[in-house]
């Protein structure tokens, strides 16, 4: 039993902290926001540090680490609300490494490690958004699979080279395809996302060659989608952990220094208590996220663990960013003050891939039908 990070993990976490806090200052975030929304300087730094290949196999120049280490890096990203497609690129490329053909691995992964390929994730669906029930339809053709239909709100779609998309055949079997976003038949329509990250809806009317069908040619589509989904969820939890800490840090500084009624806010009725509750919830996100990431890294069944972490990341993360925003009073409403970005990110992550009720429903089904 050891809940502490290993020395190696601590190094990764410190390295990520150094890069994100060094590069993604408030000023830089504003600069990127007013540009195209992709901090390429930071992206190159992450590539140089090897963090874009953190969980990829050594044969493709990766560091061969796993979900715990990725969670530690995403946590640092969340702390600085840095605008880079680390979550989707990492999860998408890990899925390719895990399930993809030799061809697709060799063509995609080394360029991911170098920072040249960016992967988007199209898991969410129009309608009631059951990730395991994709809204894009897949039809087998000679030498490939034809995809038709749309995916909403894909972050960084307009800057990505590829998108990992889930689709469903008429017989309900599932296909995971890596689609070249420059291919004809792929239509990208930028939309505004609440957290201001570059985001687009994508329409597919394209045939993907068999080499780029990452999973689903041999009946393993559902298992692979579940794998990607669980890894994506834990990635979101890790981001939310960082966002919560970032929000709480700004809020703590505020309530310590802001004086009303001739004493600091933190000494006013209820403020300290509310702040403390946010700290407790953040710790819940932390330990459950680490546990889920660890179980996944070890190859254990982590279905329930992921849902437990997601419960805290959605319900808890949501209430943390609302409380932090609230405790800023009017100042928080001014968008030249940084706390609102944490609010927007926190809200976004709470709805991305399903809200708290949805995670609790799934968890309830698992535990009550044992």
């Amino acid at each position, binding site marked *: 039993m050891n809940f502490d990070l290993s020395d190696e993990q601590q190094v990764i976490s410190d390295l990520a902290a150094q890069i994100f806090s060094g590069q993604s200052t408030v000023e830089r975030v504003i600069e990127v926001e007013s540009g195209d929304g992709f901090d390429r300087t930071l992206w190159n730094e992450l590539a140089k540090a090897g963090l874009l290949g953190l969980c990829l196999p050594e044969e493709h120049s990766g560091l061969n680490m796993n979900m715990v280490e990725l969670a530690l890096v995403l946590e640092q990203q969340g702390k600085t609300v840095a605008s880079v497609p680390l979550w989707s690129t990492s999860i998408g490329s890990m899925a390719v490494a895990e399930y993809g053909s030799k061809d697709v691995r060799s063509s995609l992964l080394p360029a991911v490690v170098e920072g040249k390929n960016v992967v988007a994730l199209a898991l969410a669906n129009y309608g009631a958004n059951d990730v395991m029930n994709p809204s894009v339809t897949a039809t087998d053709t000679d030498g490939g699979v034809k995809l038709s239909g749309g995916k909403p709100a894909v972050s960084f779609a307009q800057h990505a080279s590829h998108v990992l998309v889930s689709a469903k055949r008429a017989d309900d079997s599932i296909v995971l395809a890596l689609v070249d976003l420059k291919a004809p038949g792929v239509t990208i329509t930028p*939309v505004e996302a609440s957290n201001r990250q570059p985001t687009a*809806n994508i329409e597919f009317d394209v045939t993907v060659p068999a080499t780029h069908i990452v999973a689903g040619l041999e009946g393993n589509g559902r298992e692979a989608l579940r794998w990607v989904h669980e890894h994506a969820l834990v990635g979101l939890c890790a981001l939310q952990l960082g966002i919560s800490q970032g929000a709480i840090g700004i809020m703590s500084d505020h309530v310590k220094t*802001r*004086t009303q009624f*001739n004493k*600091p806010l933190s000494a006013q009725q209820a403020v300290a208590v509310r702040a403390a509750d946010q700290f407790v919830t953040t710790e819940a996100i932390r330990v459950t996220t680490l546990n889920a990431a660890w179980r996944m890294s070890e190859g254990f069944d982590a279905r329930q663990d992921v849902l437990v972490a997601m419960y805290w990341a959605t319900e808890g993360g949501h209430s943390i960013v609302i409380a932090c925003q609230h405790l800023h009073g009017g100042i928080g*409403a001014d968008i*030249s003050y940084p706390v609102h970005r944490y609010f927007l990110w926190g809200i976004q992550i709470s709805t991305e891939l399903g809200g708290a009720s949805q995670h609790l429903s799934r968890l309830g089904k698992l535990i009550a039908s044992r």
Partner: protein
Amino acid sequence: MSMHIGDSPEEAAFRAEVRAWLSQHAAPRSDDGGNWHDDLHAHSIACKKWQRVLFNNGWAGISWPKQFGGRGGSHLQESIFNEEQAKFETHTGLFAVSLGMVGPTLMAHGTPEQQEVFLPKMLSGEHVWCQLFSEPNAGSDLANVATRAIEDGDDFIVNGQKVWTSMGQFADYGILLTRTEPDAPKHKGITYFIVDMKTPGIEVRPLVQMTGVAHFNEVFLTDVRIPKANIVGGLHGGWAVANTTLTSERGFIGGGSSSWSVDELIDFARERGLDKDPVVRGKLAECYARAQTLTYLGYRLRTAASNRTMPGPEMFVMKLAYAQHWSRTMDVAMEIAGAHGMISGDAAGDAMHWQHNLLGQFAIRLGGGTNEVQQNIIGERGLGLPREPSVDRDQPWRSLAKG
């Protein structure tokens, strides 16, 4: 008089009259709640136009006495009118401060001259008013205002900075709290002015919010000259006047018509195929229960306003319940919205409407005093808890540490 929760026959007749008139003069409300958030300027023009229509037809200031240009009706009639008006595509927000806060304050504390000069043009929509109260270091602790006003002949000269001035960029006049006696305890050295927003030395800078619009402004005052005739409530007597204004504001925020309704949320759930989900249904039911509760709390306030002077903690109860209701409902709305909840702009469709309201919740939580300020007042007035021991109530304002 017996209890009657709903319209009496006379009230029903009045409501029918109002509805008939409105249906002739306004379009029915659109599904997205009149999505005026995006273009404040257009909104302000529409508000002025509508206020002029109301005024010309005798519907402006329904509960205001006739001597001030009002209709001389009851508070209840005004509430009925507002309820019906909310069902139409009408724009009214620009005059919220004028009619909801400045009007009642001037009627209570203004000089006859001030009442005569300002009230009719407020009603006609000719003058838009804003509130210059909060400062960077005077938020919840409003009595800490530091904007200085120094006597100079028949005028005062004012220097300082104000924040969170709603619709300030469109205002013709403002109500302004200043410090005129720094050596008095903080509540006792404040003077309340009427200020012409076109006076030299006033600069209004819009503050863009998360929703992307600049509802609020910072206002900088540099050597602004205000005649003594514009003092409301006497020199150093501004705190009592400010309290009248704030009480009106809380009632407005607690009881104002919303840009959304639970019915619309149920429709939204139905469109998203979630209206049969038992968990979603339970949440919709909670939102519905809260909305109904606000209705009855509102009825009680109206009854009180009709029968007596303003009640004790009821208004604060309403404001807190309203802030909770808003925030809970938006949480449910975002859950229902799902992936759509993350998209803004036209692509988002109905979800955009809810997202706007989610982001807008902080104005409700913070306007008219934070939830915490309301809770403390309820503790005092509802439960008789002693006022939190204050270290600064009786000391000279000048001697207090400034945050």
